[in-house]
């Protein structure tokens, strides 16, 4: 783990007129971490990244990098490299000139620059394109050029704003894997903005989940997946998303569509809840909640079933060979630890 690139956001608020793009955001990033800012579009991820980069100033709150308050430090003095969603390559310069620009600005000697440029280009496999202009590159190559420009200078923080969103699906998967390896090999702290939960889940060491200008949960992907803090996060993370159905809690059990499921809760009494069960956590069983198969989506190795349980839609992922057919009536069960309960009014986990 490198010792540089520790970040701390303390009570950051960003107002645009009356509109709060960020409402009291606090989090910490550890040196060497791959940290994702995940959330739906408009939730304040880019705003957070731009405040970290120094491109925007927070309305209130402080930003610390490596323990130093940088809230009023100029962007160019923060030693931060960034890959923009649009790549923001300099169209009048060749790939080599683009990559060398940050080194030139740092007054690095010419001879060292050309070696560093070649090295960075090789790392992202565009060393054969150094003489081209950005306009002569494919989307994927442009993206790599932007990456090379960011990694060529050994900045202490490496920011990426939806860097894969302009690539086609196949290229996105390939680049995603490479990006992770690159970050590991460079041993830098990376802050990665995405609205794609799968990207965040696969790339991040830890992530902060944004909803409407607030961080609702911070944790490793596994933690957030296993214990989502709120209905919103539960519905946002995982594909297909978690089933969230109105239900009634009763002395340790939860009643969903007339069927009683065991939970790990022990509180006595009764109340209305929202019950969440991941499609993959539901099993087809000889007995349980009875359901009619409305639709079968065959994904090859698995299938997703849309079930009608007394008027409630529930989705189940099955990997068995004997996938039920549309129109069949089946029974489903779930283990107590796979049932999440949320407060229907606050949306918070119970």
């Amino acid at each position, binding site marked *: 783990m490198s010792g540089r690139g520790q970040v701390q956001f303390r009570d950051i608020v960003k107002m645009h007129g009356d509109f709060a793009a960020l409402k009291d955001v606090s989090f910490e990033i550890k040196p060497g971490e791959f940290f994702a800012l995940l959330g739906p579009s408009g939730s304040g991820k880019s705003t957070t990244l731009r405040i970290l980069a120094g491109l925007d100033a927070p309305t209130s709150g402080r930003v610390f990098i490596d323990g130093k308050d940088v809230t009023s430090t100029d962007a*160019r003095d923060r030693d931060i490299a960034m890959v*923009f969603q649009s790549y*923001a390559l300099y*169209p*009048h310069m060749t790939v080599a000139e683009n990559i060398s*620009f940050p080194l030139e600005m740092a007054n690095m000697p010419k001879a060292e620059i050309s070696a560093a440029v070649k090295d960075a280009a090789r790392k992202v496999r565009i060393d054969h394109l150094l003489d081209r202009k950005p306009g002569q590159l494919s989307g994927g190559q442009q993206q790599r050029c932007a990456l090379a420009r960011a990694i060529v200078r050994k900045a202490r923080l490496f920011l990426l704003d939806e860097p894969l969103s302009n690539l086609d699906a196949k290229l996105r998967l390939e680049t995603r894997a490479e990006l992770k390896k690159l970050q590991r090999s460079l041993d830098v702290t990376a802050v990665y903005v995405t609205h794609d939960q799968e990207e965040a889940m696969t790339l991040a060491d830890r992530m902060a989940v944004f909803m409407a200008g607030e961080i609702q949960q911070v944790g490793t992907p596994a933690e957030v997946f296993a214990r989502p803090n709120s209905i919103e996060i539960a519905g946002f993370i995982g594909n297909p998303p978690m089933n969230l159905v109105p239900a009634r809690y009763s002395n340790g059990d939860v009643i969903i569509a007339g069927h009683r499921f065991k939970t790990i809760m022990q509180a006595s009494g009764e109340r209305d809840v929202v019950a969440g069960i991941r499609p993959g956590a539901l099993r087809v069983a000889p007995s349980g909640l009875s359901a009619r198969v409305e639709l079968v989506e065959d994904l090859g190795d698995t299938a997703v079933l849309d079930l009608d349980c007394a008027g409630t839609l529930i989705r189940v992922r099955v990997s068995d060979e004997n996938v039920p057919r549309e129109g069949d009536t089946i029974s489903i069960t779930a283990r107590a630890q796979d049932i999440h309960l949320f407060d229907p009014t606050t949306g918070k986990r119970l």
Partner: protein
Amino acid sequence: MTGKRLRVFALLAISLVFLLAWAFPVLWSVLNSLKTDRDALAYPPKLIFTPTWEAYHDVLFGSASILPNLVSSMVISVGTTVVTMLMAIPAAYALARLRFRGKKFAGFYVLATQMLPPVGIIIPYFLVLRNIGWIDTYQGIILIYLSFSLPFAIWLLVSYFEDIPFEMEEAAYLDGASRLRTLWRIIIPQVRGGIAVTVVFVFLNAWNEFLFAVVLSGNTVRPVTVAMFNFVSVEQTLWAKLAAVSVLAMLPVVVLGVVAQKHIVKGLTVGAVKGGGRR
């Protein structure tokens, strides 16, 4: 298919008509400039004659040489262009980046200066220059030309600057560039075409200007557009010499046009393709 060809043909025909209409006076001047004054006066006009450089020799090296006037024109035009660009580039950049309430109005102001009838403001301009003692000086003429060329140049340049995404500048800041270096290394190179177009327009406007020059200049400063009239007098008009001066005055225009042609065409079409860059 045939419809398309017909359209191309029609376009070519129309272009030819325009070309002839514009080329005729130019060709006429060139022909006359190669005649003697006597041939130039002949009626019906002579198309067959012995060409001579006499007129050129006289207007360049004779007693009423226009060489100083060509120099005068050059100083005024280059001076106006340089000062205009030095001020217009940062101004246009700022206008393109800033959001302020008067932005729409600023656009209107620019157009208004282009629409004002020059005769309407020539007397106030004259009085202003006389009061500060700048009549018949280079700085006086250039100052007056600036009042037209500057708004025009800014207006033309703004659309080019607006085409550059702000993110590109932010990328440069994060790469460690200062604002000035970003402007110089990242922004200016991308608006080169627009700058070339603007330089050409500003230079030509200054070079061709007559009305203000005739009123506000005098003996020290006397651009070629004004000096030309030495060859027109009550008794006679020296047509061949007048034509020779015209051709000489047109030369820089033609040269500039040829040199900058690529940029002008590109600059204009880039604006057009990007959906009316000339907001």
